[in-house]
C-alpha cells in the first residue's frame, strides 16, 4: 500500500513537468467541493480569463522568450488543515505562485507553510489580522476590512446627516456573520464608531442562517436607525428578507461586497434591498472600461454559466499582479517574483491601483454601489491610498 502511494504521486509530478521554455504554472487552492464551491468556481473562472488573455498575446515575454501560462488547481474544501496539504501539492507539481485560499482563516493557517515553501501567495482574504502575521510571502489584492469600514462607515454617517441634518440620535446596527470576515468587519466597525463616538448595537449570526426574524427584531428593539453588515451568500438574502418583512423601508444600509454578487441578488426580491448600498470591488453592471471589458470577455467564454461576479474579478486581478511581477522580475524563481510583488507601484488592476505596502496589502480603494432594482450601480470608487502614503 505504501509503495503504491508514493510511486503514483512521483509519476504525477514527472508528468506535469512541461516542455521548454518552461511554462509558468500558477497554483490555485480553492473550495471545489463543500459549502463554498460557488466561490471556488468563480475564482477559477476569473483566473482562466486572465491566463487566456496573456496566452493569446503569446504568453509572458521574458528575456529568454515567451512563456505560456498554465493553471493547476486543488480542492481544499475551504478547510484550514487541508489547505496546507493542497498548497504543498501545488508547489510539488511546479506552481511558482499560489492564488487563494478563499477564507481568511485558511490564510492565517498557512503562515508557517508559506515561509517554509518560500512561494508568494495572493488571495482576497480581507481579515485585518493577516498583515499582523508580517509574512513576506502572503499578499492580498483587495482592500481589507479596515478600509471597507472607513469608507462605509463614513457613507453611513454622510447619508444620515443628509437625511436628518445632524448625527444626533444615530444608532448603527452592526449585523455581521460570526465567521472570520464577519468578526473582523464587526471589530473594525466597533473601533470606527467608537472613534467617532457614534452609538451602535452589535450582534452576530451564523453564516448560513436560514431564519433571522428574531435576530432583526432584537436589533430593531435596540433602537437602530442605520445598518452595516458583513455576511455570506446564504445569510444575506435571509437578513434582507427579515428586515423587509419586519417593516424596515428605505433605511440606510451598507453591506460588504456580497450584495454586489449577481447570484446573491437573484435570491432576493427587488423591494427588499432597494436603495441599499454596498462596497464592491466589481459589478457586472459597472460601465467603467476595465470592468466592462472583463465582463464581456467573461460572458464570451462562459456564456452565463457561471455569471461574472466579485470573486472572478478579484482572482483576475490577483493573476494580473503575479504575471506583472514575473515580467518585472524577468524570472520564474519564486523568491524573485515575491520581491517584484513587494515593489509593485501604481499597477492598474481591475479592482484598483496596486501599491505594495510593507506586508500583505496591495489595494486601498473600493467602489461603492447602490442597489437599484436588484442592479448594483457603481457611483464611483473611493480611494484611501493617500492616507497610506501612496
Amino acid at each position, binding site marked *: 500500500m505504501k509503495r503504491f502511494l508514493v510511486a503514483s504521486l512521483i509519476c504525477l509530478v514527472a508528468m506535469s513537468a512541461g516542455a521548454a521554455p518552461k511554462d509558468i504554472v500558477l497554483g490555485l487552492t480553492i473550495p471545489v*467541493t463543500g*459549502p463554498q*464551491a*460557488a466561490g*471556488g*468556481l468563480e475564482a477559477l473562472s476569473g483566473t482562466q480569463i486572465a491566463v487566456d488573455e496573456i496566452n493569446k498575446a503569446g504568453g509572458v515575454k521574458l528575456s529568454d522568450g515567451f512563456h505560456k501560462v498554465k493553471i493547476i488547481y486543488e480542492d481544499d474544501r475551504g478547510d484550514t488543515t487541508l489547505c496546507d496539504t493542497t498548497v504543498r501539492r501545488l508547489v510539488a507539481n511546479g506552481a511558482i505562485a499560489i492564488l487563494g485560499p478563499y477564507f481568511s482563516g485558511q490564510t492565517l493557517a498557512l503562515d508557517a507553510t508559506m515561509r517554509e515553501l518560500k512561494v508568494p501567495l495572493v488571495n482576497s482574504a480581507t481579515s485585518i489580522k493577516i498583515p499582523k502575521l508580517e509574512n513576506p510571502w502572503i499578499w492580498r489584492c483587495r482592500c481589507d476590512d479596515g478600509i471597507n469600514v472607513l469608507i462605509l462607515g463614513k457613507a453611513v454617517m454622510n447619508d444620515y446627516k443628509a437625511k436628518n441634518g445632524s448625527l444626533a440620535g444615530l444608532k448603527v446596527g452592526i449585523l455581521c456573520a*460570526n465567521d472570520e470576515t464577519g468578526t473582523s468587519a464587526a471589530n473594525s466597525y466597533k473601533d470606527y464608531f467608537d472613534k467617532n463616538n457614534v452609538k451602535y448595537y452589535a*450582534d*452576530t*449570526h*451564523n453564516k*448560513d*442562517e*436560514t*431564519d*433571522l*426574524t*428574531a*435576530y432583526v*427584531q*432584537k436589533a430593531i*428593539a*435596540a433602537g437602530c436607525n442605520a445598518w452595516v453588515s458583513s455576511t455570506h*451568500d*446564504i445569510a444575506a*438574502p435571509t437578513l434582507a428578507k427579515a428586515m423587509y*418583512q*419586519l*417593516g424596515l423601508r428605505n433605511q440606510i444600509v451598507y453591506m460588504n461586497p456580497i450584495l454586489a454578487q449577481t*447570484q*446573491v441578488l*437573484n*435570491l432576493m*426580491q427587488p423591494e427588499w434591498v432597494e436603495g441599499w448600498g454596498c462596497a464592491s470591488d466589481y459589478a457586472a453592471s459597472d460601465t467603467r472600461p476595465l470592468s466592462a471589458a472583463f465582463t464581456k470577455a467573461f460572458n464570451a467564454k462562459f456564456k452565463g*454559466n*457561471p*455569471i461574472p461576479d466579485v470573486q472572478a474579478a478579484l482572482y483576475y486581478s490577483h493573476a494580473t499582479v503575479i504575471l506583472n511581477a514575473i515580467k518585472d522580475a524577468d524570472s520564474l524563481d519564486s523568491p524573485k517574483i515575491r520581491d517584484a510583488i513587494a515593489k509593485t507601484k501604481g499597477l492598474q488592476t481591475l479592482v484598483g491601483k496596486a501599491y505594495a505596502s510593507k506586508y500583505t496589502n496591495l489595494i486601498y480603494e473600493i467602489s461603492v454601489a447602490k442597489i437599484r432594482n436588484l442592479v448594483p450601480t457603481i457611483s464611483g470608487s473611493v480611494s484611501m491610498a493617500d492616507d497610506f502614503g501612496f
Partner: protein
Amino acid sequence: MGAVNNMNLMQFIATGVAMGFIYALISTEYTLIYNATGLVNFAHESFIVLGAYLFGGTFARSLGLPPWLAVICTVIAMGAFGVLVSTIVLNPLRNLQFITYAMFGTMMLSRIIIESSRLVWGPLPFTVQGFLRDSIKIGSTFLFKAHLYIIAASIIIVVALQIFFRTTKMGKAMICVSQNKDAAALMGINVTRSINLTVALSAMLCGVIGIFCTPLFNISTGMAASAALKGFCAGVVGGFGSYPGAIVGGILIGLLEQFGTMLFPTAYKDVVAFGVMVIFLLVRPSGIVKVKKA
C-alpha cells in the same frame, strides 16, 4: 433586557411555530423510514436537497414548467428515486450485522447525492422567482406563504399517514414489516416491496419539504444541513417513532430556538436546539408523546 418587552412576542411565536413545522415534517420523514426498515436514515438531508434541486433546477428552471406542475413532477420523480435507492443501497444495508454499518452507509449515500447535485446543477445557489415568495400580515406579525403551505402540508401528511396506516391493507402491511420483518414475510407480505414503498413515500415527503423550503432557504447544497439535524432533535424530543410526537417535538424546538435568541446572542441558536435534545435524551429518552413500543 429592557428591549425584550417591546418586541412583538406574537412574531416570535409565529416564526417559531412555522420553523417548528419544518423540523416536524423532517422528523416525520425519518420516523417513517426508521419504523419501516429499522434503519436510521442519515441521508434524508440529501433527499431534501435533491427534491429542491429537482424542483427548482430541472422542472422550474430548465423545463420552465408552471410551479404547481413542477411540484407534482418533483414528487413523482422523488418517489421513483426512493425506490431506486431502497433497492440498491438501503436493502443491502438493512441486513448488515451491525447497525453502525447501516448508519455509515446512509451517511456516504448522503454525500454522494449532495455531490452529484452540485455536479449536475452547479454550485451557485439559486431560487424559483415568484413561487410562494410573498408573505401575509396579521396585525404586526407576518408569516411567509411558504410557511403556511408547510404547516398545511405537515398536518395533511400526518393525518394521511395515520389513516393510511390504520385503514389500508398496504399500510397495515408496512406496520407489520416495521415491527417484525420475518413474521411479516411468513404472513405472505412482500417485505422488500413494502420497504421500497416506505422509502419511496419518505423520499416524496422529502421532496415536499425541499419544494417548500426553496422560497425560505433558497436552493444550495447546504440548505437543509441545520434543519436536518434539528429534525433529529425534534424527533427525539417529541417521542421517537410517533408521528404526532414529531409535530409536538418540532414546534417545541422551533419555539425554544426563537426564544433562545432573545436570551443569548443569536449565534448560540443551534446550541439551544442540541442542548434541549441532549437533556431530553438523558431525562426522558422516550420523548413527550410516550411511544407504545410493541
